[in-house]
């Protein structure tokens, strides 16, 4: 449980951010200069806000009313900075071990740092630097992770390797994570809560599924980023075709590849713009997923498109369709239709270079 | 323990020789003013030898030396030094001609003993007012001699002992003895341990060594 309520002035810029999110990954999403870094700096203790309060899992880091101020080194946060901030006088290995040696072997292997350990940071490429910074933060066994665009400099395959590790951290160690990213796919995959930052203020905050399935998010996140997130349980693997059958609230969905163990829970992002609505059950299509859904609402979306909120079992989907289609198909609230999407569109293994 | 002697820097050379012959004696050289102040601030010297009676008076008045031990051990002559052994008349015109727009090098006329004597002598001869604009003061008499040796200054005022010791520097005029206070090197014991070495300084052998270096013997009182 992270509670943040801070006010601070930085030149012309006024930060007035207040949110509280349960344990899990809180994604901070917002435009360049909206105040994301400032907020996590305040949580880490690198920025001392003019007034307010910050507490993490019950521990009060900062409270102007009570005069509490915990210095940064007592907060046990692992912070990956937007600029890597490696210690130039230490080797990669020494950098990694600076804060501790927690889970060392695994982290080094995961981040592909084996060959770099004896290097000095100035001999690293941009992405290598960022990986070392991430490893360094993880190895200090933090009670809270602050990640400021940690994967922006990384290529798709590398991202795809690192994300499951962050998921595992979130799920097993129960370390709260605050995650700044411009990549909605990362956000959707990792986030449990989503806070949309605008001009130093929190424009919207809530459970990620809720915020993302909300038709209003089409305007808030932009057309390409909106899309609901479903929870699914792995049912079985089709070894022949390397497909994975998972059960969502709304029905069965097939994913490409062999994903997870039977019984494992997955999160599937279904981008609003990737859903095709059909009045009839599909036939002869290579897209294998067609969930029967009920239209809950049709609202104005981003620009000329319409946002269609769908009920799939007890979960929500969000589709974005053109006004012309809606007219042609004669869609209205209460209609029973099919939401068709390709297996690949729903895979959680999105990491292969999507950003 | 070694006997520690604080001595005016211009005595270095002959005094080193005497100290070496005595054994167990170390000499620390410095400017007379500095030495006197150090003694008055508790320097662990056994013997002090200065180039200035004024400073010794101050030490004596302040009770920093054994009063009965004070005695002048040496004298010197004040001379004009030049790089060429051409005799010089001590007249304004002659001096200015020799200077030829150059400088007359002297120790600080207010503080360095050779400078004090020099100013007094020039004043006595009626030369000071005309010559003082041409004077270049330095912090010790050796520096003035060095300027002449380097031919940066045509003339300097210094001691006969300097002319005797420094190659290429000649005494071209000697100031009359009555033109300045007699040049004396007063010595005194600071501690009783110093008395023996003080005696040695008055010994004929020591006086010979000094004389060979161009100093003047003083009659024992």
């Amino acid at each position, binding site marked *: 449980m992270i509670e943040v309520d801070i006010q601070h002035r930085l030149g012309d810029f006024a930060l007035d951010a207040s949110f509280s999110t349960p344990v899990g990954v809180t994604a901070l999403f917002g435009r360049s200069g909206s105040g994301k870094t400032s907020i996590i700096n305040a949580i*880490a*203790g*690198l920025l001392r806000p003019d007034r307010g309060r910050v507490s993490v899992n019950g521990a009060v880091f900062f409270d102007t009313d009570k005069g509490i101020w915990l*210095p*940064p*080194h007592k*907060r*046990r*946060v*692992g*912070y990956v*900075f937007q*600029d890597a*901030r490696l*210690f*130039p*006088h230490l080797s990669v290995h020494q950098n990694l071990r*600076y*804060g*501790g040696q927690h889970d060392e072997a695994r982290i080094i292997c995961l981040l592909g740092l084996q060959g770099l350990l004896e290097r*000095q940071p*100035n001999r690293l490429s941009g992405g290598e630097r960022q990986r070392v910074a991430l490893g*360094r*933060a993880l190895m*200090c066994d933090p009670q809270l992770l*602050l990640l400021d665009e940690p994967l922006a400099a990384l290529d798709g395959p590398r991202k795809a390797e690192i994300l499951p590790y962050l998921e595992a951290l979130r799920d097993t160690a129960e370390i709260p994570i605050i995650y700044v990213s411009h990549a909605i796919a990362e956000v959707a995959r990792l986030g449990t809560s989503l806070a949309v930052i605008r001009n130093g203020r929190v424009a919207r905050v809530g459970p990620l599924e809720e915020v993302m399935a909300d038709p209003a998010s089409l305007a808030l996140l932009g057309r390409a980023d909106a899309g609901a997130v479903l929870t699914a349980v792995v049912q079985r693997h089709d070894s022949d075709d390397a497909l994975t059958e998972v059960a969502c609230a709304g029905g069965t969905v097939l994913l490409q590849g062999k994903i997870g163990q039977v019984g494992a829970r997955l999160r599937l992002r279904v981008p609003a713009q990737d859903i095709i609505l059909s009045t009839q059950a599909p036939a002869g299509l290579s897209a294998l997923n067609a969930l029967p859904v009920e239209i809950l609402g049709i609202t104005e979306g981003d620009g000329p498109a319409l946002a269609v909120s769908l009920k799939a079992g007890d979960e929500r989907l969000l589709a974005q369709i053109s006004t012309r289609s809606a007219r042609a198909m004669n869609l209205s609230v209460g209609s029973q239709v099919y939401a068709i999407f390709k297996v690949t569109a729903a895979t959680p293994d999105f990491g292969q270079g999507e950003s | 323990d070694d006997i*520690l002697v*604080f001595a005016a*820097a*211009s005595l*270095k*050379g002959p005094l*080193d020789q005497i100290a070496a012959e005595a054994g167990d004696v*170390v*000499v*620390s*050289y*410095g400017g007379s003013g*500095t*030495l006197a*102040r*150090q003694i008055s*601030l*508790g*320097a*662990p010297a056994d013997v002090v030898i200065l180039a200035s009676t004024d400073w010794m008076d101050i030490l004596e008045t302040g009770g920093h030396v054994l009063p009965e031990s004070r005695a002048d051990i040496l004298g010197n002559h004040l001379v004009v030094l030049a790089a060429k052994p051409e005799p010089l008349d001590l007249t304004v015109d002659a001096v200015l001609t020799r200077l030829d727009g150059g400088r007359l090098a002297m120790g600080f006329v207010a503080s360095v003993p050779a400078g004090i004597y020099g100013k007094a002598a020039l004043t006595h001869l009626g030369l000071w007012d005309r010559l003082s604009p041409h004077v270049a003061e330095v912090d*010790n008499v*050796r520096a003035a001699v*060095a300027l002449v040796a380097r031919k940066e200054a045509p003339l300097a005022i210094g001691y006969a002992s300097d002319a005797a*010791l*420094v*190659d290429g520097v000649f005494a071209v005029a000697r100031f009359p003895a009555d033109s300045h206070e007699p040049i004396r090197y007063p010595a005194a014991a600071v501690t009783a341990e110093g008395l023996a070495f003080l005696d040695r300084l008055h010994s004929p052998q020591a006086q010979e060594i000094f004389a060979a270096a161009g100093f003047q013997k003083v009659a024992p009182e």
Partner: protein
Amino acid sequence: MTGGLGPAEWAAIWLSLRVALVAVIFTLPLAIWAAHVLARKVFVGKQLFNVLIHLPLVLPPVVTGYLLLVIFGTQGAVGGWLSTTLGLTLAFRWTGAALAAGVMAFPLMVRAMRLGFEAVDSGLEDAAATLGASRWRVFRTVTLPLVWPGILAGAVLGFAKALGEFGATITFVAAIPGQTQTIPSAIYGLLQVPGQERGVVSLVVVAIVLSMGALLVSEWLARRAVQRVNR
């Protein structure tokens, strides 16, 4: 003493080395502290502190020597106290020469180090703090190594200055052969005697060689550091 290096000169050389080393070693922590304070802290009287540190540079060395004598002499306030409580006498001892050299070298050391502190990217210190390092550990493991070139530069300047210091030293501790006569005092002494030019030249060469050694060591250490940090 016939031109080369006699026992008195050798004594002066060893003494100079000892004095300069002791001066630098003892002054170093203080100089680092002062440089850090000047670079990072804001406090009333900071400018006064700054001026105080620079004083030995601005005053004629003889004046500094006198002040040392007045303060640290056996009759002086601090000197008397040191001598009665700790049994430590400075005036006219080699320890005093080291003190004089240290005092004269201090402003040079502080200035170089202060620049180093000012150049350290505070973002790296922030990063270290978030990794759980206490202020002291951050200082020791991040700030200090990054200031290392400045510290080296300061130490070398200080060492060179300590080797060359004359005015304050001779005023504070005189030039007692074997005890307080350093290379510069010995040179001064030799300069007083005509015909000792060879001795002067020998001692000058020794001084140059010593400082060259210090320079080379520091350059080597700095190059190692730069190789690592080099961006």
